[in-house]
């Protein structure tokens, strides 16, 4: 495959685990761990998919996603959102902000892999 995934998550051991399973599946993985400059990092890297945590230092995943959706270059970028909040209102917020998929922690490795494959395959 060789496609690029950008993981924006502030928990280092989750970053490490996701990076490992995606790399083993043939993805090229880049990571970032804060919300302040996440939009710029995405626009510079222009990955095939972003895995975006909701609770990030500096700026929430919802805010980042809204900014990405308002820019022409990243309007259609597949974004998989991760959150520890599984409530209906969070899912609705993610949908309104423009998330391609919403996944609630804790998730299995297989679920992440399946979601990434499906989203990039379109």
């Amino acid at each position: 495959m060789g496609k690029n995934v950008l993981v924006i998550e502030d928990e280092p051991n989750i970053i490490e685990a996701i990076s490992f399973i995606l790399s083993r599946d043939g993805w090229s993985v880049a990571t970032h761990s804060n919300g302040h400059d996440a939009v710029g990092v995405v626009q510079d890297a222009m990955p095939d998919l972003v895995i975006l945590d909701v609770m990030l230092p500096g700026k929430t995943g919802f805010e980042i996603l809204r900014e990405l959706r308002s820019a022409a270059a990243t309007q259609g970028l597949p974004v998989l959102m991760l959150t520890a909040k599984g409530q209906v209102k969070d899912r609705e917020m993610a949908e309104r902000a423009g998330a391609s998929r919403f996944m609630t922690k804790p998730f299995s490795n297989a679920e992440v892999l399946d979601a990434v494959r499906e989203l990039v395959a379109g």
Partner: protein
Amino acid sequence: MAQQTLAGTRIRERRLMAGLRQAELAKLVGISGSYLNLIEHNRRRIGGKLLNDISQALNVEPSLLSEGAEAALVSALREAAAETEKVTPELERGDEFAGRFPGWAALIAEQHQRLRNLEHTAATLTDRLTHDPHLATSVHEMLTMVTAIRSTAGILAETKEIEPEWRNRFHRNLNEDSQRLAEGAEQLVAYLDDAGDAAAGMTLPLEEVEAMLETHGFRFDGLVNATQEELATFVDNQAQLTTDAARDMAMTVVRQLRADARLLSLDMLVRHVGDGVVDPAKIASDYGVPLSTVLRRLAAVSDELLPMPCGLVMCDAAGTLMLRKPVEGFAIPRFSAACPKWPLFQALSRPMQALRQTVTVTGREAHRFECYAISEPVGAIQVNVAPLYHSYMLIIPLEDGGEAGSEVGSTCRVCPREVCEGRREPSLLA
């Protein structure tokens, strides 16, 4: 036993038990024998100072003579009945049940109150779980740890060939994350334990303030000359007030009641109240004080000044009840919204206009009351700023048999009136 024993009948029973003649008891309490005769035959209602004097002369608690204890029990049974959906108690026989089985009736009332308290605690805890930022953060952190552990464990279990350095790294991660998870779980349990202890005694600040006011009979005449510091110390020392919010609210109310006492002493009111006849508007006019001050002050001193204690209720412009001095026969709801037909709410639409209305409270008892209400602005008048209003209503019990006036209820849930344009929800008594 079907009829509720009346206060007059009880006085007669207790007098006979004490071996006193009617004239003897009348002399002891300073009234005529014929007036006591009317009371004993339930043709005059009794309360306040006279009830206290008679109970003292008969050496019994006033509550044993008043309708209060039994009426409160029947009222509690009705409330309990109104809040059940699965069974249909015989509402019309509530007083008979309370009379024949007072112990069982008290048990139902006590358990109903306990259920309410538990519901209140559950609602408070639910609110805390939903909005407590510390709890939300703790749960989020724990879920993050669980996610890391699950994902790392999955890699170790499911990856057939894994380099030793990666394997060691993931083992180390598992160890770190499991330790953090354990610490987080311990902290969360300790936090929830503390929350449970706090919730066990939880009451709303307004409830604490009302309990304090009831203890002092809404009177703070002794603080008329107190300094601000002494006033603050007095409020701080009230056992019923357990939170800063309750103490702040109490301070506001006590300051106001003290200011009322400064403007209208008991002597000034005594001069205006002859034979138990009250004219709040004339008192306000003669002494040049706001009518709301007169209403609050009359409610506060009515136990001593008038033949019957009077009630008082105050609401803000949103109709939220913020001050309640209960009076027998006029139920003032604690949590649910009150009857929109009260003069209290009518006054909100006619600010600064004094209202006087006779009302009869719905229900079999059908007590009559004279209500005075006024809505007055709060705070200083400012240019181009619409004032906020507080509305006050004085509730004066009337003797039976006169003009019925308007029919009002307590709250829709327990109001038996079927057709009412003010109804906002179905009655459970229908």
